[in-house]
């Protein structure tokens, strides 16, 4: 993300529909360029429309639902299961904070219920998703031909987490008491104030270790598309910001035009000293 934000402004390469257009245009994929002399008018754009669309896309994978329904049937539970586990973890941490610092909080019971709902549904969906994705990758030649060891490893890695979590809750901790104790321990550097803590189990240990490793591993892989999708959409697919005189885009372009390319084809005429501006302003030296 840091690298991406430091890259130079790129040329426009949007593709329609662009979701921050007004609702009446988004409906059919129209743009502000449909208006005569648009540069003299105030642009009507709605970031709310963009976020609304993006939220549904990231949470429910709307694009796959529309374009590739059979894959969505396994991809959605996989992704939503992961999101629910992140939600369950945040709820566990909130629960731990309240238990430690707010005596007799009225929010503890509702939180307990939410943890159980998010945890159970996340684990069940995640297991269905992992098994389904693994089956699809192995059985469908379209996917298999493009799958590498890493693709299978990634699914297996996540599957280990979901499976061990499922075994843990089925084997004696259906109310996530162990997870609550672990969350409290994270804040208190190991202590627990819970009245009942189930004994540690291999499955519980595996689920905690695998979850911790996944939190580090996912951002390093292409699986980060779950949240990097925001940049793919917002910064490229929907980046239709016009270059207005004296505006920030123009300033960034002027900076880019000073860069010195080194492309070697003869018609380019780059020598490492000429800038993009120099090269774009001159005629190519080549036979016609």
């Amino acid at each position, binding site marked *: 993300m840091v690298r*991406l934000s430091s*890259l*130079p402004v*790129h*040329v*426009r*390469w949007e*593709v*329609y*529909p*662009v979701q921050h257009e007004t609702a009446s245009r988004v409906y059919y*994929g*129209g*743009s502000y*360029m*449909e208006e*005569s*002399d648009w540069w003299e008018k105030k642009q009507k754009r709605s970031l709310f429309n963009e976020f609304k669309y993006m939220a549904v*896309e990231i949470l429910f*994978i709307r694009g*796959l639902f529309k*374009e*590739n329904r059979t894959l969505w049937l396994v991809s959605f539970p996989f992704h939503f299961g992961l999101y629910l586990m992140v939600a369950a973890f945040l709820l566990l941490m909130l629960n731990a904070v309240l238990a430690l610092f707010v005596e007799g909080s009225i929010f503890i019971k509702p939180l307990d219920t939410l943890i159980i709902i998010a945890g159970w549904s996340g684990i069940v969906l995640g297991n269905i998703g992992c098994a389904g994705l693994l089956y699809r990758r192995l059985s469908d030649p379209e*996917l298999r*031909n*493009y799958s*590498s*060891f*890493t*693709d299978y*490893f990634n699914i297996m890695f996540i599957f280990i987490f979901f499976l061990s979590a499922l075994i843990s809750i089925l084997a004696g901790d259906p109310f996530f008491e162990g997870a609550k104790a672990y969350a409290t321990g994270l804040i208190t550097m190991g202590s627990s104030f819970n009245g009942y803590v189930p004994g540690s189990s291999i499955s519980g240990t595996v689920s905690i270790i695998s979850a911790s490793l996944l939190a580090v591993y996912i951002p390093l892989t*292409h699986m980060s*598309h779950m949240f*990097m*999708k925001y940049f*793919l959409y917002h910064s*490229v*697919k929907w980046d239709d910001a016009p*270059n207005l*005189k004296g505006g920030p885009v123009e300033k960034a*372009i*002027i900076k*880019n*035009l000073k*860069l*010195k*390319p*080194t*492309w*070697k*084809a*003869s*018609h380019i005429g780059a020598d490492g000293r000429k800038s*993009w501006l120099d*090269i*774009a302003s001159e*005629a*190519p030296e080549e*036979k*016609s």
Partner: protein
Amino acid sequence: MKPSDISRKSECLCHVEPADLTPLPFPYEDYNDRTITALKPDKIKSIESSLDDTVAVGIPKPAGEEEEKAFVERFLAGLKKLFEKENNWTFLQPLILSMEHCAKCQTCSQACPVYEMSGGKDIYRPIFRAEVLRRIYRKYIKPGGKISARLTGDIDLNWTTIARLAELSYRCTLCRRCATVCPVGVDNGLINHEIRKLFSQEMGIAPKEIHDKGSVLQLSKGSSTGMIPLAARDSVEFIEEEMEEITGCKVNIPWDVEGADILLLHNAGEMLAWPENVGAFAIIFQAAGISWTLSSEAVGYDAVNYGLWYDDVQFSRVAVRHADIARRLRVKKIVMGECGHAHKALTVIADRLLTGDLNIPRESAMVTLDNIISSGKLKLDPMRNNFPVTLHDPCNIVRSMGIVEPQRRILRKIAPLFREMTPHGVDNYCCGGGSGFAIMSGYNFSEWRTLLSSRKKFLQILDAFSGEPEDMPKYVCAPCSNCKGSIRDIISYYDAEERSRIYYGGLVELIVNAMTDMKKPIISFGGEPSWA
């Protein structure tokens, strides 16, 4: 077939049999056994031709191992530059995002008309060439790539791999339908565009029709048609005479009018292939009392910018020339005529290239014409266009610019029998001639285009007119020169004028045809006037 198979030794990696192609309906079943004419061995003996049944680039085979090695090294040097801001600030961020985040879900394949029409040939999957580039990049450019390649997907790199990849980058029309359906937002069309750039900007490899006879000719002579300024003026003079003869309307086409409101940029191909389009624009602008001009300066009378498809530097040079001509003419805005790629090139892509007084406002002719029609300045009789009309959506105007409704608003007013294609608008299918294919005809490439990349469009056209009487003339409105070229070729190849009475033309011709001021129709069907 796997992406790594691109390195496999084979005389032809992918062959398309007639039975593989999506069948055509009545009365075109006799075309279902047609296939691409085999390449003549003597013509291809010294060039790379082992990808499929056609050749678009024609890379000369290497003389020996040294040449092969140098070729591979030069490719890798270019690949590295694609990921450097000094060399590729134009597309660096989009490229990195698309290279790093593909989930390989294959949703893009189902959206690609070439893949679909070929009967699902693996090499035509939008992800195929992207994955080849991704694997080469990871293995040969990224640190530790040779070890990690065994885990992330391996590929062999040799002369054949690279030469086939160059050819393969000219089997995608850059319609970007795949990009619109990708749930992650990956753009395999963009990766294909970057592959073409690498070959052109580092290795000087590009189809001669779009480089030597395209952007180079345009920058040196003034137009990719080869027309010098004097020839352009002669052509327009001829068009003025033709218009008076055809429609009975005397038209005056202005040149180099300083301070005009509008500089109209036509694809110069229109002047030669479809002069009535240039004439129709003039009739409309004259009738509406618009202050406008053409430019007679080299490059200024040809809106095309082939660099859009393969080379950022050539692209920039042409865009700067267009903008500079408009600046010196002191026009208020540039209006792009009926040329899709020129629309996208100068309006959208060049928007982040032109600064200061070169940043002249640019507008689509669809919008200008919609404005004129809505203003009521033209007297129109839609019944003069009382024949079925369908609209082809040029990808560059519609999917890449979001200009969807203006042309439809016009058609609803002037074409009572307007029929939409399915799908249409931003979900449209390419004419098959996008990204330079319409002008590429070396070896047997035009046949590959007509049989494969334009096939979906032909099926769409037939479907749009499926309920119409066979003997009634039908009009495919294609407001883009390249699209018109492709549609002309499919109508001709499949004998659709004779069998289904399908004709084609632009939007302005339909407008002029409905103008009550015209004494005679501008549109005729096989010599038969469209109205009496």
